[in-house]
């Protein structure tokens, strides 16, 4: 029989052994430097949020409150989306070696032992009953199973719940305090918790599928059957009358997901890599969604199935499979519930024991004369001992609370009561991360005020409902004063108790925190910590830190301190790695500068909390008190330096850009200079050719009076031609120079381009006729009209036509002129059937003094400036001039001029 007591005990023990194996494996891998904590494991470990209160209790809540149980999971989903806030918490904790939420708050407000203690007390008072709830859940699930099997396993005097508490304590001690880690990280535990998360999700979905599709005919069938009963139909209708409660619960659970000690432990302290948050942001909400899909169906299924019977809805997940003989499934559910409870208990007690040890016991121990008298070198063993004792004590407290409360109200409602307790950390935490003015006095006042209101409006009334204390303050108000009624404070009735408590406690908490902070002055340590926390992402770092500490210390004393609390082996290991990071071969040769003191303090903080670490370091180092003003000066200076360096960076960028521009400009100037030289030497050469010819012929005429008249006439003709060419050349050079320097005069107006082309053709008509070259035009009768300089356009046209007539063969030559509108441009083509140009020549002819044809053998036919000038002119009007040609296929010179933009 599956459900015998022995088998159940064996199964539970086997499961815990498996869990332990997973944890050991995780630890072993961590020690070997091969962490198994991946982003997925991290995200799954967050599901320690889903305790047995989720596993069993959600169904119970759904049977009374309908869909409102979902608020507990919607809040965390939304909160995780503010990943920036969580990232900041993680970063701060890594930098300051923070190991618990108490340490976080204490460190921010000047490493205050008072605050650390206060936060620890609130956490313990708020959370111990929650641990009791887990014990109750395991006990209740066992009771259900044993009710079927008959408890023949344990004698009547042995309480199974006590046994469970002992096993859990041993378990937690085993893998929670294996060694004292500088970062309080427990990779084995995280791995085990992630494993448990998978188990409980699997178990819950299994029972959900069984109820929905095994017992009933699917979701639709289940809902339709439930809809038949008005009482059940109420459960899945969303009632806007509970709008306020709904929002309050979302807020409350959103705060709980980061401020419950176990959640802070898993999300912040156990985070090995900040990038894991990326996965957790959606994978953990997905987990929550999956584990909740079947809660309402199971609740409805249970209510339908057990109609009229007195079955505790909290146990539906067990009783429904059992009622249908699915014993294997019931055992799986039991294991799932065990996972949910053990995961929560382990992480919560580890987190609480760290806080109790570092923030309650250590401060007291450090002050006691016993410790000072005790000159034992190594206190690390003592620290572990304290933690183990704290774990045992917390579980014992949980057990006692469970025994005392039993079935009383105080246990059932404790989940949300715990949430409301840890919500009190929110103002001090958020304020501490984003508001530099928040002070220790403000945080203490806010926490005390919020905690007091929470006690009065939520915890004590729950005691009263359990009849442990008189209920007078709830019914009639404290001392009979009506407006002091615990759950209708100042007459505020009509809210449920959780919303009521949340409203008043946060009101008191935030109010006191803000008002007291604004009216108190931080001391130097506080001001420094405020700066470091709020500006964690842009903290100036080492140098400012070093300036903020002045005093003297000896390396020996600090090392002795580390050895005392970390153990000699671990202390030396840390020292060696610190020395290596500073490129010092032997740590014994280091000097105790500010940086080293900070390192030592951070290491100590990892082991005993920041507040105690501060006290211990101060006890061996002679520190100079800087005073608030000086600290603020240094911090302001650091801020300014940051601002300056940022400014400097910007200036440097500008300077670099300017240098680049200057270099480019310089290069361009050099290029221009070279071009000018080239130009001058070319011009000189071009001018000398006709001059030489003129001079030679003139000398011949001058020296030889016996020259024939015909020769004289011929020579004179050449002289006149060359002189003309010279004049033309000089004119064009001047023209070119004007165009290039931008000093040319332009008279821009509306020009009928067709008319200009026709006039140019007429002007050169004689030239064409002389050489017997055909000149044909394809020109619109009027227009197109462009904005240009008429004379300049004529110049371009004449240049193109005279080039064409120069290069076509006499007799068979043909030149065609076309004017057309293409898009937003006028396109003018002058095509000839001359020898054509090579691809290279097509480019070269637009350079100055470069001409078509072989200039070495042939006599130059032009000045070599016509085309460059024409191109300049056309480009001035916003157009282009180019040539399309192949050797032997004639040349087609084309230029375009944009049409004026239409008036629209």
């Amino acid at each position, binding site marked *: 029989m599956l459900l015998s007591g022995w088998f159940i005990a064996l199964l539970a023990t086997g499961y815990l052994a498996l869990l332990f194996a997973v944890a050991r494996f995780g630890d072993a891998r961590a020690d070997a430097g091969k962490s198994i904590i991946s982003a997925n494991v991290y995200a799954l470990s967050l599901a320690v949020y889903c305790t047995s209160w989720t596993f069993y209790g959600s169904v119970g809540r759904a049977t009374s409150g309908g*869909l409102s149980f*979902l608020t507990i999971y*919607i809040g965390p*989903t*939304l*909160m995780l*989306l*503010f*990943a*920036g806030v969580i*990232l900041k918490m993680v970063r701060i904790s890594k930098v300051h070696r923070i190991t618990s939420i108490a340490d976080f708050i204490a460190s921010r407000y000047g490493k205050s032992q008072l605050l650390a203690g206060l936060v620890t007390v609130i956490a313990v008072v708020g959370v111990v009953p929650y641990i009791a709830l887990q014990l109750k859940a395991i006990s209740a699930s066992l009771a259900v199973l044993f009710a079927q099997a008959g408890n023949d396993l344990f004698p009547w005097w042995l309480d199974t719940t006590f046994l469970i508490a002992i096993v859990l304590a041993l378990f937690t001690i085993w893998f929670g305090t294996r060694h004292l880690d500088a970062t309080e990280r427990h990779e084995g535990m995280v791995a085990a918790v992630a494993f448990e998360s998978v188990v409980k999700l699997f178990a819950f979905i299994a029972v959900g599928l069984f109820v929905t599709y095994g017992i009933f005919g699917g*979701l*639709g*069938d289940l*809902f*339709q059957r439930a*809809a038949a009963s008005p009482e059940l139909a109420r459960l*899945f*209708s*969303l*009632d*806007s009358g*509970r*709008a306020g409660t*709904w*929002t309050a619960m*979302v807020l409350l659970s959103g705060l709980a997901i980061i401020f419950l000690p176990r959640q802070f432990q898993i999300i912040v302290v156990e985070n090995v890599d900040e990038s894991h948050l*990326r*996965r957790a*942001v*959606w*994978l953990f*909400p*997905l987990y929550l*969604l999956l584990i909740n*899909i079947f809660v*309402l169906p199971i609740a409805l299924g249970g209510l339908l199935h057990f109609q009229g019977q007195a079955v505790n809805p909290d146990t539906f997940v067990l009783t429904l499979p059992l009622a249908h003989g699915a014993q294997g499934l019931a055992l799986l559910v039991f294991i799932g519930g065990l996972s949910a409870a053990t995961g929560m208990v382990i992480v919560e007690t580890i987190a609480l024991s760290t806080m109790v040890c570092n923030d309650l016991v250590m401060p007291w121990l450090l002050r006691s004369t016993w410790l000072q008298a005790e000159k034992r070198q190594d206190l690390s063993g003592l620290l572990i001992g304290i933690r183990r004792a704290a774990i045992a004590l917390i579980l014992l407290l949980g057990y006692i609370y469970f025994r005392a409360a039993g079935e009383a109200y105080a246990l059932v409602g404790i989940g949300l009561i715990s949430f409301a307790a840890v919500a009190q950390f929110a103002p001090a935490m958020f304020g501490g991360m984003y508001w530099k003015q928040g002070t220790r006095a403000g945080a203490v006042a806010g926490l005390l005020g919020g905690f007091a209101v929470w006690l009065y409006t939520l915890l004590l009334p729950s005691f009263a409902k359990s009849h442990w204390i008189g209920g007078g303050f709830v019914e009639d108000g404290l001392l009979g004063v009506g407006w002091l009624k615990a759950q209708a404070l100042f007459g505020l009735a009509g809210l449920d108790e959780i919303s009521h408590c949340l409203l008043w406690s946060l009101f008191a908490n935030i109010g006191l925190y803000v008002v007291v902070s604004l009216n108190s002055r931080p001391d130097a340590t506080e001001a420094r910590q405020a700066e470091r926390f709020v500006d964690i*992402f*842009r903290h100036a770092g080492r140098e400012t830190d070093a300036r903020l500490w002045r005093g003297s210390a000896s390396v020996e004393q600090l090392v002795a301190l580390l050895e005392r609390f970390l153990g000699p082996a671990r202390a030396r290991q840390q020292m060696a790695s610190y020395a290596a990071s500073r490129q010092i071969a032997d740590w014994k040769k280091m000097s105790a500068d500010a940086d080293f003191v900070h390192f030592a303090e951070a290491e100590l903080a990892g082991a005993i909390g920041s507040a105690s670490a501060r006290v211990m370091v101060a006890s061996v180092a002679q520190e100079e008190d800087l005073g608030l003003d000086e600290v603020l000066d240094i911090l302001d200076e650091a801020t300014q330096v940051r601002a300056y360096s*940022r400014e400097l960076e910007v200036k440097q960028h500008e300077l670099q850009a300017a240098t680049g521009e200057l270099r480019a400009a310089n290069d361009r100037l050099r290029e221009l200079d070279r071009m000018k030289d080239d130009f001058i030497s070319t011009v000189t050469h071009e001018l000398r050719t006709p001059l030489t010819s003129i001079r030679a012929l003139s000398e011949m005429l001058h020296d030889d009076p016996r020259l024939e008249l015909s020769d004289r006439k011929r020579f004179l003709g050449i002289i006149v031609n060359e002189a003309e060419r010279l004049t033309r050349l000089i004119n064009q050079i001047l023209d070119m120079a004007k165009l290039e320097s931008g000093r040319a005069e332009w008279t821009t107006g509306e020009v009928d381009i067709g008319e200009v082309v026709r006039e140019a053709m007429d002007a050169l008509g004689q030239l064409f006729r002389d050489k017997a070259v055909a000149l044909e035009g394809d020109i619109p009768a009027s227009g197109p009209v462009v904005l240009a300089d008429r004379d300049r356009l004529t110049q371009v046209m004449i240049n193109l036509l005279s080039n064409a007539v120069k290069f076509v063969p006499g007799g068979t030559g043909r030149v065609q002129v076309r004017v057309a509108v293409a898009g937003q441009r006028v396109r003018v083509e002058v095509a000839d059937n001359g020898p054509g140009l090579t691809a290279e020549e097509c480019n070269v002819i637009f350079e100055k003094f470069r001409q078509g044809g072989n200039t070495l053998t042939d006599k130059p036919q032009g000045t070599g400036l016509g085309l460059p000038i024409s191109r300049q002119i056309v480009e001035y009007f916003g157009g282009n001039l180019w040539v399309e040609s192949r050797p032997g296929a004639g040349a087609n010179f084309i230029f375009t001029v944009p049409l004026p933009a239409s008036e629209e």
Partner: protein
Amino acid sequence: MKRASLSRQRLAALGLLGLPLLTYPLLGLPSGSWAGIPAGYLYLFGVWAGLIALAAWVAERKGS
């Protein structure tokens, strides 16, 4: 100065979008049922799943 990365800002925007979608009064809008399943139940889980899908898309996108 280091600014919050764009993906973090996008996630926070999703959070701000989710809050009104998953609380009253918007939560009171769906009524009736679809294939026998109450509209409110579908709406809650649908919006929730949608938020998670968007968050996954934003968070896991390369180069953001």
